[in-house]
């Protein structure tokens, strides 16, 4: 088994195609991080498959020197499920965006997550439709002014991690395009997880939605606007690590408290607690930070494993076509 594989590098994972995202696009940073990370998994490159739908993010597979399939809008999870069913040995990655994954492909996203198909989903969330020139997406903030919403959008946005949790997700995480180290660590854990791993990556679109995540990306102020979750650690944030998240046991709601004097009230992150994970994933309001890191994780058998268990059982005795055609009532004519 553990045959030594030649050590691959970032260069081995870069395809010969010219990368064609807009200058300054967050996708470049994500691509670089993933290309750099892939050798760390120490797997045969030929077993790695990137599958995408349609949109800026979905060009990603063309730039990875692995097997890749750029499919149709919203359907990557369904195609990936077919790939895994045909060959469970493959390491399958779904690359999608907020429009692809949660608008036109919302249904497939729900089902790939609830089935717990063993693959990694990287959802690049830039809260806008980039490739079609800037219309509002299902994650755009209400009031976003775009060519299709000149007076501001009236839709309410959805929370990708919140929906993934609601669909029964077993691995839910969030990271940021330019936070290479954090992103690599989160994606590594997603890859280690057995089941559908969902990673929302906040990604800047410099053309149509520039700066939308500036508060959580700007190193000078980010600590005030994001909280990095670590399993078993208190949920603390702020430039001086002076603020924390607490669970109000009366109202059953999260609140932001001062660390000083409230040490016993600070919430400790438990990534196996679904109720708290849902609250942390969907925190909103001006004084709440954005949670990044592994928000939720649970052990559950994967769809592909369960399906193959049935197949193995069904194939204990191999079928015979001749016997099948003669099954049931037959009669002889002489």
């Amino acid at each position, binding site marked *: 088994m553990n045959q030594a594989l030649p050590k691959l590098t970032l260069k081995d994972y870069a*395809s010969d*195609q010219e990368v064609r995202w807009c200058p300054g696009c967050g996708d470049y940073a994500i691509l670089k991080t993933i290309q750099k990370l892939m050798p760390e998994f120490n797997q*045969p*490159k*030929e*077993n790695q*498959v990137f*599958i995408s739908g*349609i949109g800026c993010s979905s060009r990603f*597979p*063309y730039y*990875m*020197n*692995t*097997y*890749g*399939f*750029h*499919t*149709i809008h919203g*359907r990557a*999870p*369904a*195609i*990936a*499920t*077919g*790939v*895994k*069913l*045909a*060959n469970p*040995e*493959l390491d399958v990655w779904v690359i999608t965006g907020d429009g692809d994954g949660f608008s036109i492909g919302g*249904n*497939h996203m*729900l*089902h790939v997550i609830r089935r717990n198909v063993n693959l990694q989903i990287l959802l690049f969330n830039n809260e806008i439709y980039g490739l079609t020139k800037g219309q509002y997406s299902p994650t755009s903030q209400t009031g976003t002014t775009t060519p299709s919403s000149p007076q501001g959008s009236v839709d309410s946005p959805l929370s990708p991690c919140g929906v993934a949790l609601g669909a029964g997700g077993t691995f839910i995480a969030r990271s940021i395009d330019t936070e290479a180290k954090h992103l690599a660590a989160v994606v590594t854990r997603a890859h280690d997880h057995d089941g559908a791993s969902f990673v929302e990556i906040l990604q800047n679109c410099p053309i149509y939605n520039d700066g939308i995540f500036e508060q959580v990306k700007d190193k000078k102020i980010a600590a005030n606007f994001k909280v990095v979750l670590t399993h078993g650690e208190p949920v603390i944030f702020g430039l001086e690590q002076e603020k924390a998240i607490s669970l109000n046991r009366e109202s059953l709601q999260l609140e932001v408290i001062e660390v000083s004097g409230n040490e016993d009230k600070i919430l400790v992150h438990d990534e196996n607690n679904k109720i708290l994970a849902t609250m942390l994933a969907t925190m909103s309001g001006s004084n709440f930070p954005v949670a990044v890191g592994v928000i939720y994780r649970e052990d559950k058998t994967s769809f592909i494993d369960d*399906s193959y268990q*049935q*197949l193995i059982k*069904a*194939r*204990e*005795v*191999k*079928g015979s*076509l*001749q016997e*099948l*055609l*003669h099954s*049931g*009532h*037959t*009669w*002889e*004519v*002489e």
Partner: protein
Amino acid sequence: MELAEEKLDEHHLDEKEVVDVVVRFAGDSGDGMQLTGTNFTQATALYGNDLSTFPDFPAEIRAPVGATFGVSAFQIYFGAEDVTTAGDALDVLVAMNPAALVTNIANLVEGGLVIVDRGAFTAKNLKKAKYQSNPLEDSSLDGFRVLDIDISKQVLAAVESFGLTHKGALRCKNMWTLGLVMWLFDRDRQSTIDSLNAKFSSKPEIAGSNIAALNAGHAYGETAELPAGIHVYKVPQAKVSPGTYRNVTGSNALAWGLIAGSELADIDLLFASYPITPASNLLHELVNHRDFNINTFQAEDEIAAVCAAIGASFAGSLGITSSAGPGIALKAEGIALAAATELPLVVVDTQRGGPSTGLPTKTEQSDLNMALYGRHGDTPMPVIASSTPIDCFEVAIEAIRLATKYMTPVMLLSDGYLANAAEPWKIPDVSTLEPFPVSHHSEAEGFKPSLRDKDTLARVWAKPGTAGLEHRIGGIEKSYDTGDISYDPSNHQKMTDMRHAKVAGIANDIPLQKACLGEESGELAVVGWGSTFGAIHQAVKRARSEGLDVSHIHVRYLSPLPRNLGEILHNFETVLVPEMNTGQFVHLVKSEFLIDAEGLNKVAGQPFKIGEILAAIHKKLGAMESAS
């Protein structure tokens, strides 16, 4: 051409021997008519008649008792000669209640036999069937032979010793009736007794009471004083070639054909589909045969089903998806992806009445245009259609052969009639089936995803997991030379031309068109495709026996068409195309071959009657005669 009906020879039931008979069992959805019909079919096959059956059930799973829209029926046509349809008019009608009588009596021939359960002709049931007066008491059934029996009462007496509830005992009514009809045609009850014992092996009292009812119905025929003209009818055995036979529905034959295709191609299948009437039986059948190299996947919707199948094909298996019209419409974008990426895919369309939800349990051939043209862009795709339940087996194998050899999506058209209809099948010796093993590319040297076979134009099949062949495919136009993304104008022209040439080239790899009955030239060709085969065959056979110069041309390959089809059709003075749509194939034939073809079109949710086609043949030839 207008649809007219021609009265066929009546089978006078006062003869002791009849050449062929049509029997229809009709009752409430819950009356067990399908089970009755299936058992009668079994006994008839064992008796040695040729036969064809058609179950006709409502869309409602359990309609209100006694409602006309809840009538479930099972029709069987059996006889001493080749039987290829489920029959036109009825010789025998079994009506378990007034609703079953009122919805079917119009199809009973004059002098035909109607068997009714008098106990079910209550004031309430008569009202539900909208009868103003009881047809058993007024003179409306005067033209028929009538066996009017209080079946409920007979059954209660027959099963008394089993201690069933009143309701439970009445459930045996169908078996009592079956026993009587078996007596009428001298069928052996043993196969039914065996199947009841097997079905209710854990409930011996249920098996016992049903068998008792079956025997009591038979004994009633033997002993009761029946009205004059009702007696045992002999239907001589058919001359059939020696071999082992079984009955098979189109659905099962298609499922088994897919399994056979997988074995012959030596490739794993992923069958991905979403439940839809009348296509779901394929999934139900295949999920039970995962002991072959088959896996099944019930997807979240039609789109996911076609996409999962495409994913499986990308990964080196063969993806198959299946649906009926509305579902196929949803799959169109996915099918075009398979065409663009040149991956194999088989799409099975079990056509039903449309548009929209239409008539989900009824049959139609109205998806032909969608199969041929229903995609965005210039997206050609081979289309083939099965003609009979048995033919579904061969056509399924052929779909797999074409998909894997040419790396293309293939559309297989079946329909609601074929899916549910059954006929006896001389089981083929599987060792005589020609294998067509598929190979995946493995040579890294000189590999590029755009490599293609110079004869078939099929693109190389390189599956993930193969070292050195890592590559990317996708829906964006690709360079003919490298397989990389290309927006080059001349390349798009070249790729579009190549996709057309690839599908068109299949015409060189399919059998030449032949006439399946009659000569390949003459006065009139009746040209059909799909499930109209049986009715056209019988109509042409009868017309020819009258000395008329008419041939039957049946087209299996709808795209590309057989390369000599035009030549053959030009050899006829005129062409008639019966179809269960408003004229989709006739339009193709006319535009493709510039011939004067006329359509005969029926969209009633029911198959053609032989008499309808025969009348059209007479009219057509009569018109030619008077013109000359």
